[in-house]
């Protein structure tokens, strides 16, 4: 691992992202618009919005970063730039961390925008701590990035990468506690949900907004998310093959 190479990769990915104004706009604006739609949808039952909004603040960055990262990595692979990078002194870990860093910064902007809209414009209940709320949102974005990197080696085309969304992300959204609180799920569904990182993301978000102080549960959730990020990044780095058939 070489910090200079990690930063160089992050700077390169960052330059590419900056040029892609449309993707940037979609990444930042869409979550805000969706939050607003939810608040309008439940205008007559604000307590539902109050339960959903914090969970959504955890889910949106996860979905968008997962998609962007997996497509970006498949593009590196199909364009030949990945093969070329792997003939240079760039290590696999440098590449994966560089991507994580660049998308992490993007995630911070996205999370800040979505949290601002939810708290200021849509009157979401104040969380115990706004910085911790943003921190959890960024951790979720990194989780999406890490899973996208980890799984990208299984996809050989952009089409396949996009299909990982319903395969990997939708089950987590169903079982993470967003639609039915985990406490009300059948035992076996709850057990499956415990193996899914998004559950802890949603748990951290809802715990934060339901209490006057930051519950220790939030830190445990953050640690679990962090662990999943590390494992997924490690998988991403080890499945990058320098030598192929």
């Amino acid at each position, binding site marked *: 691992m070489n910090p*200079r*190479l990690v930063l160089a990769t992050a700077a*390169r990915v960052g*330059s590419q992202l900056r*040029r892609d104004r449309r993707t940037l706009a979609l990444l930042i604006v869409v979550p805000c618009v969706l939050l607003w739609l939810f608040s309008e949808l439940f205008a007559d039952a604000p307590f539902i919005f109050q339960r959903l909004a914090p969970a959504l603040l955890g889910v949106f960055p996860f979905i968008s970063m997962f998609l962007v990262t997996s497509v970006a990595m498949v593009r590196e692979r199909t364009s030949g730039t990945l093969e070329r*990078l792997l*003939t240079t*002194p760039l290590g696999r870990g440098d590449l994966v961390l560089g991507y994580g860093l660049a998308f992490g910064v993007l995630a911070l902007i996205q999370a800040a925008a979505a949290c601002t809209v939810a708290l200021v414009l849509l009157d979401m209940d104040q969380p115990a701590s706004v910085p911790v709320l943003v921190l959890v949102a960024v951790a979720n974005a990194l989780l999406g990035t890490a899973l996208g990197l980890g799984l990208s080696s299984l996809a050989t085309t952009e089409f396949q990468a996009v299909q990982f969304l319903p395969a990997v992300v939708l089950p987590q959204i169903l079982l993470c506690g967003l639609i039915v609180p985990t406490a009300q799920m059948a035992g076996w569904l709850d057990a499956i949900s415990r193996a899914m990182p998004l559950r802890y993301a949603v748990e951290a978000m809802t715990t934060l907004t339901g209490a006057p102080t930051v519950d220790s549960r939030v830190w445990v959730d953050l640690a679990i998310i962090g662990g999943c990020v590390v494992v997924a990044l490690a998988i991403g780095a080890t499945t990058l093959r*320098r030598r192929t*058939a």
Partner: protein
Amino acid sequence: MQSITVDDLVVVRGGVSVLDHISFKVPAGSVTGLLGPSGSGKTTLLRVIVGVQRITSGAVTLLGRPAGDARLRHEVGYTTQAPSVYPDLTVAENIRTHATLHGLGRDAVDEAITVVGLAEQADRLVRTLSGGQVNRVSLACALVFKPALLLLDEPTVGLDPVLRRDLWALFASLAADGTTLVVSSHVMEEARRCDRLLLLREGRLLADHTPEGLRAVTGTPDLDEAFLRLVEHGEEAA
């Protein structure tokens, strides 16, 4: 001194023999042309040398180290056939990306841009360039760190005759400075510009000669004709 030694190399991919018992040596400071029809195994051979291709058997040594050795990554520049550059970055940003990986700065980037003749396009997005210009961006990314060994897969495809002549002049001057180049091409016309020629067909090495040697062996002054004669008469002519 030998820069590259390939000894009894075999690559079988999906049950099909792609490279069949190939052996040759490439001397340092020379331009070696890797020629042969499309599908003859040129790209696979270059990928073996750069260390990204799994091999079935044999040994490949570069600058005294096995192909793919981590220490070689500072010594070997490689361009793929389809230019592997980022279309959404400028010419300078693409080259800077590679310069940074080798700990080099702005001077190296500017020099590489000048060498490939893209100074006027330095700040243009690669997406907006012509095919030949994109090829040269890819080449500049490989040149920027002045590697001891340059492996170029069809670098002159899609270039007009003037650019092609300029690039071959560049290859010759790099070789004169001690760089070892292996350049693949399916255009026999380019063969006469090489110091040595390796002729591949269906994964077999048909000939390993200087251009003069090839002309002498096949009894024709025309290299295109020489190649056709080799292909038609099998390996005994080599």
